[in-house]
């Protein structure tokens, strides 16, 4: 990790999941985190409103997050307190469930939660990580799983991730469409189940055909000139 960590930030980082100075509680599923208004409200506008707006949460000094994955919430909180991204910061007992996630698939829910709670920086980091992993590990089954998650997001929200998927598909289109490896098989299965992915791939292929025919025309005209 970084050698010269800002003393203020390292101090704040220590507060994560600490009961010291905690005047707020976040609950999600069966998990509970002692939290700190000073940290949350300066990092996230959503938190700011929760604390101030005058609803139940303001009076009870606690928020219950429904319909969120506690592990992903934990990752978000880690990022808010430390600026660090990734499962590396998860406590040991959380590891099995996260460890079970495919790395590529992990970035998609983080991306989604960052969008929901209006954290554009975290969203950008998650998108970048997804892009890296997708280019690196496109030839495993997990990639197909990740694609499915991406296409579950509304098209406008998930646009940056879909672009990554199409970039990778373009690079390896023949492998995905005609290959015999497991990854190719999983890809084609996902395409069957996800009409939008199929449509996107079809568009991509037709573009490729156009490109090819243009190249052929160019070659032919060059030969004719000769």
């Amino acid at each position, binding site marked *: 990790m970084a050698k010269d960590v800002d003393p203020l930030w390292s101090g704040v980082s220590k507060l994560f999941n600490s009961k010291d100075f905690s005047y707020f509680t976040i609950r999600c*599923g069966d998990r509970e985190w002692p939290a700190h208004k000073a940290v949350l409200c300066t990092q996230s*506008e*959503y938190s700011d*409103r*929760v604390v101030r*707006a*005058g*609803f*139940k*949460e*303001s*009076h009870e000094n606690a*928020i*219950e*997050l*429904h*319909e*969120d*994955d506690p592990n992903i919430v934990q990752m978000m909180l880690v990022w808010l307190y430390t600026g660090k991204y990734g499962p590396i910061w998860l406590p040991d007992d959380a590891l099995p469930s996260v460890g*079970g*996630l*495919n790395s590529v698939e992990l970035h998609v*829910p983080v991306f*989604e939660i960052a*969008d*929901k709670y*209006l954290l*554009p920086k975290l969203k950008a980091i998650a998108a970048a990580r997804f892009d890296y992993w997708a280019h690196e590990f496109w030839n495993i089954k997990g990639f197909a*799983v990740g694609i*499915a*998650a991406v296409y*579950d*997001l*509304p*098209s*406008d*929200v998930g646009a940056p991730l879909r672009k990554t998927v199409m970039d990778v598909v373009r690079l390896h289109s023949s492998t995905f469409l005609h290959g015999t490896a497991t990854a190719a098989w999983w890809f084609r299965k996902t395409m069957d189940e996800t009409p939008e992915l199929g449509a996107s791939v079809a568009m991509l292929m037709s573009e490729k055909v156009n490109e090819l025919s243009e190249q052929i025309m160019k070659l032919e005209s060059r030969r004719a000139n000769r």
Partner: protein
Amino acid sequence: MVLPRRKANRMQGLNVPDVDFETTWGVLEKAFLEIHTKNASALSFEELYRNAYKIVLKKKGEELYHKVADFEARWLSSEVRTKIVATITPPLQLLTEGNGGRLLSSTAERRTAGENFLRTLKQSWEDHGVCMGMLTDVLMYMVKDRVYCTDHRQPSIFAKAMGLFRDQILRSFDRPNGTMLAECLTKVILDQIQMDRDGEKIDQHLIKANVYMLEGLYQSDQEVEEEKLYLKMFEPYFLETSAAFYREEGERLLKESDAGTYCKEAKRRIDEESDRCRSTISEATTSKIQRVVEDELIRHKMKGLIEMDSGVQYMIDNDKLYELGLVFELEARVDPRKGELTKAIVKIVQDMGLAINRTAEVTSAAPPTAAAQDDAGEEKQKAGAARQINQQTVAALKWVEDVLALKERFDSIWKVAFNSDQTISTALTRSIADVINAFGRSSEYISLFIDENMKKGIRDKTEIEVDATLEQAIMTLRYLQDKDIFETYYKKHLCKRLLLKKSQSIDVEKQMISKMKMELGNSFTLKLEAMFKDMTLSEDLTGGYRAHVTRLGQADAKRVELSINVLTSMTWPLEAFRGAGEDEREGRSNLIFPGSIERIKTGFERFYAEKYSGRKLTWQTNMGDADMKATFPKSRNGRPMTHDINCSTYGMLILLLFNDLRADQPLSLEEIQTKTNIRESDLKRNLQSLAVAPKTRFLVKEPMSREIKAGDKFYYNDNFSSKIIKIKVGVVSAGNKVEGDKERKETEKKNNDSRGFAIEAAVVRIMKQRKDLSHAQLITETLTVLSSQFKPDVNMIKKRIESLIEREYLERIEDAPVPSYKYLA
């Protein structure tokens, strides 16, 4: 194989139809109602946010937006509007419906009703703001991240809600065909402000809160800065009613109170209105309302205020400096040039100056008192003439002192009341100058003022006082236009002071010259300084001659000693010594000197010729005087006594004639004239001193009468008796005071001549340099060049140009588009 998807924990995506819009909206709507009824603390922010988030994710954002807007519109138009309209009670209805409304209900009624209305409106607005804040917080996902509003060219939901308040509340009517609530609001505020102006206590914060609302709302949802409701629906009416109020108040004050009170009131009102902007309405209005009050209370009323009976004239007459300061301050607010006040001050100064000038004229022209009338004798008339001259001096002293007092008075007013203002200073300077230059005799009087002070005034004064007197003189001189005329008079007066040794202190004289030098420049004092130089040289000459005589060894007790002043002829205005009607040739008639005198005269001429060859000495015997020792046998109680007599050269010549005669031997007037060759008029005057004046009657006249007539006989008076050893013989009408009319005409003529030369010199100098020039330009330049000396009459310049053309210094350019001249080298 199974896909290891973990959908259970994840938000349901697009493909899952588990978000029903109507149901979700229902949750939100119910919550919004709770918010508006102030029950938000039971609601979960998380739940509401999540629901809105889901709706937006399902791309139902726009529907949500409109649902929220509809909900707000409904809420405002039903709940809120009803509550506000309920506060418009009869006193307010009367107020808002007709113009006479203020008269139909009591102030207390209207105040209570108005405050109630304002309070309810304020409360509604603030509640609306708080609720909309909470709503937008909940809708944050819709509002913020998705930039929903800018995408769809809709106002943000918050702005939309503010607009709804405007449309549903302010633009609604209190009842069908009634008054728009915004209009009610404006009228109520204006009514309360009027109460405030009338000195009633009002709740400023309440009004301020409502103004704050108007400032936060716009004509349209585009929120254009210039279209704030405050600017559109309140401010113009406020300014309009204020203008009407102050127009009336100003007129009433002008009628009912004095100018001082008016100023204080106006100042108070202006301050009050600024305070009101700060405390009650909006600071954005400060400059506008100030302008209105200034227009109504100052700009349009300044003239009336100044001309009031208790106006500026009264204030100056009664030294009301504080009130003058108020008038000044008031006008300074609206006019950096203080036009009206300056105009008034200039007029007052000129009026007062005119009075001073008129007094001087009356004093100087006043008939010599009763003495002249009771005795028709010619002697009396002469004495009267002398007194008249004296009266002129009095008039002159008074005039200068009055003018200085006038100036000082306004200087102190200027300093204390007018904050040493530059514009007024300029106007004051100009008016004082006008006063001085409007007076025909100013040059002469200023010179006389100095003359009198040099001779008597400074006698017992300290150095500082003397300096102050000199400064005063210089001050008046500064304003004087015809400096050349002053120079003529000053030379004349100085000449007499120096030659007749009338000056108290030569040092002070020199101080005066150096002050003039600083003020008027080198060339002005050149000739004056030459006069002092002559005096010094003369002292040396006298001493030198005395030493020369002693060396010759003619030690003789009876020898006559000579003290002489050799004067450069062009420098000294010797005509000053000549009486009226004498001309130059007569004045220098050749006297017959007795031997002892003739000897010393020729002796000095020789001595002088040795020292300065080629110079011609002309003896000004009319200006000389002599010290003689004379012994009268019965002077001291019947015993002999020797007196030191000082008399004119003429007097000496006459007395010397009697040295060789016995006491009973008479000389007739004619004999004396033949023996001395003194001009008749001078002779008569001197004889009058020697034989008529009681204290210096060294001669006896036969017959005894005041007037010297042909055939009169004169004897040595051996009965002369006096206790005084030193006797000075005055000569009748050797007066050197103010000029007589004839003398003045002469001075004027001489002055015009010298001006003529100065103009010609200036014209030639200009033309020599410019070669050719238009007539108008030539006139302008000539005026500029001469301005330090005097202000020439344009007609005179024209005449001089004509004369120069005749003498072929210039010629007209025939075919020039404008009349022009050419220099002929």
